């Protein structure tokens, strides 16, 4: 592995990462084998099981590419290893970018995502913050998953009518359920919105291009939104279901290309204008 003397990408860090990745892979293979055997024991058609594997693999590739794009996006600051591991274990596109930002702020790393972390102590601190920040669900699962699952399976047996919606969550009868369905999207909208609002109205660190809201950040943001919406519409109108998972990565990549074009084509005084400083 070429490391160029960079501690963030040293061979030993890659080996540590490889061990973590192998562990995750091992768990997935274990559950796959057990579920496959159980499927056969239940008499499920082998073709059905094979189709589940094929369709899931195809479904996953575009999203996996957008997760890979996030690893590469975080790499200028953190190197490859931390983003790779963090997005392979519990990680999530939105959480990891946010966690990296929070950790960098806490350790006083100036320049955000575009600037290399050069202090090994700060680097290790960021790894701790990102790992501890995301770990709570693994603490909860051993206590909560079984009783919750049991309740759901029993409810399904008692009232089959409730589960006529093809694998989706059954509609609850209590009054608050309509609002509860909105909580999860609302949390994500708040999270995404923070980055959207900063690209429109936030100030950056002085002397660092692209840290604050400016012409290029707004052009990039608007391009990402518009391109994603257009492709989503195309996928929907033309019933191209295979295109749907590609929409997000296409939007992101086109927006990054447009940011390069805008920066190089616009007059310099406009291209570097960041209205909030």
């Amino acid at each position, binding site marked *: 592995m070429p490391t160029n003397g960079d501690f963030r990408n040293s061979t030993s860090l890659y080996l540590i990462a490889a061990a973590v990745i192998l562990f995750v892979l091992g768990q997935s293979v274990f559950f796959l084998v057990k579920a496959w055997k159980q499927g056969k024991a239940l008499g499920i058609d082998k073709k059905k099981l094979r189709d589940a594997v094929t369709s899931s693999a195809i479904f996953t590739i575009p999203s996996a590419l957008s997760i890979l794009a996030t690893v590469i996006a975080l790499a200028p600051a953190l190197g490859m290893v931390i983003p790779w591991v963090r997005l392979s274990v519990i990680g999530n596109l939105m959480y990891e970018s946010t966690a990296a930002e929070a950790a960098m702020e806490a350790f006083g790393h100036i320049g955000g995502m575009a600037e290399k972390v050069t202090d090994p102590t700060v680097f290790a601190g960021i790894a701790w913050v990102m790992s501890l920040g995301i770990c709570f669900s693994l603490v909860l699962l051993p206590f909560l998953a079984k009783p919750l699952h049991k309740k759901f399976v029993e409810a399904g047996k008692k009232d089959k009518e409730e589960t006529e919606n093809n694998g989706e969550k059954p509609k609850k009868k209590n009054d608050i359920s309509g609002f509860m369905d909105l909580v999860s999207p609302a949390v994500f909208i708040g999270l995404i919105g923070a980055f959207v609002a900063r690209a429109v109205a936030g100030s950056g660190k002085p002397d660092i*291009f692209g840290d604050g809201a400016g012409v290029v*950040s707004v052009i990039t943001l608007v391009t990402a939104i518009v391109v994603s919406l257009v492709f989503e519409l195309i996928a929907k109108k033309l019933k191209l279901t295979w295109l749907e998972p590609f929409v997000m990565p296409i939007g992101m990549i086109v927006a990054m290309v447009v940011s390069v074009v805008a920066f190089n084509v616009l007059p310099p005084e406009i291209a570097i204008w960041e209205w909030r400083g």
Partner: protein
Amino acid sequence: MSIKNKAEKTYFDRVHSWGRISSVTALCVLLMFPLAICIDLNVWPSFNGVMSGLLKLMPIYWTTSVLEVFLYTPMLGGGGTYLSFVTGNITNLKLPCAINAMEGAKVKANSEEGEVISTISIATSSIVTTLVMAVGVLAFAPFLETFTENELLKPAFAQVLPALFGALAAGYFSKHWKISIFPILVMIVILIFSPGMGASTLLFPGIAAAVIGAFVMWKLKWVK
């Protein structure tokens, strides 16, 4: 029938035993990673630094974790839940993938068949994601500096967050545009008065505004 029930119960219990072991081991592996970095680089970040970063994440992430466990467990089944929470990317990948596979196989999430199909789907998805990332990382690593240090491409890496979150926003905002407008306006107003506030701080009032706004709109029957 009773034999089948017994067999199912056994599988149900076994899945949860494996799942519990896998969650605890994954937790250890997750925390061994930063520890291994500290040992490898022989550096020990300050407790205060780690805590000040964590305090920005914990209120949101840990609360979301509780919500996610309650929300996703019924949809993913036993094996699918444990595996999804270990491998992550649930909302944007594992959940739609499992639902897609269950729809394809015409099985329901809380049936025995649904449990099997969901677990197979999520396990496959996790394996494919892990492999795509491993190949991608190893293929990109030698050229990364060439990309990120290239003067022509630098503006693109400076704008990674607007590009990433713009593309994510399109999907969420278009589906839930009514509940999106209010929190965005609140955050822009906050930035007008406090332009230097980082995204990791800004998301607190953002999420609060989004949830409160959604509740009010739901009460007023503007959204269902």
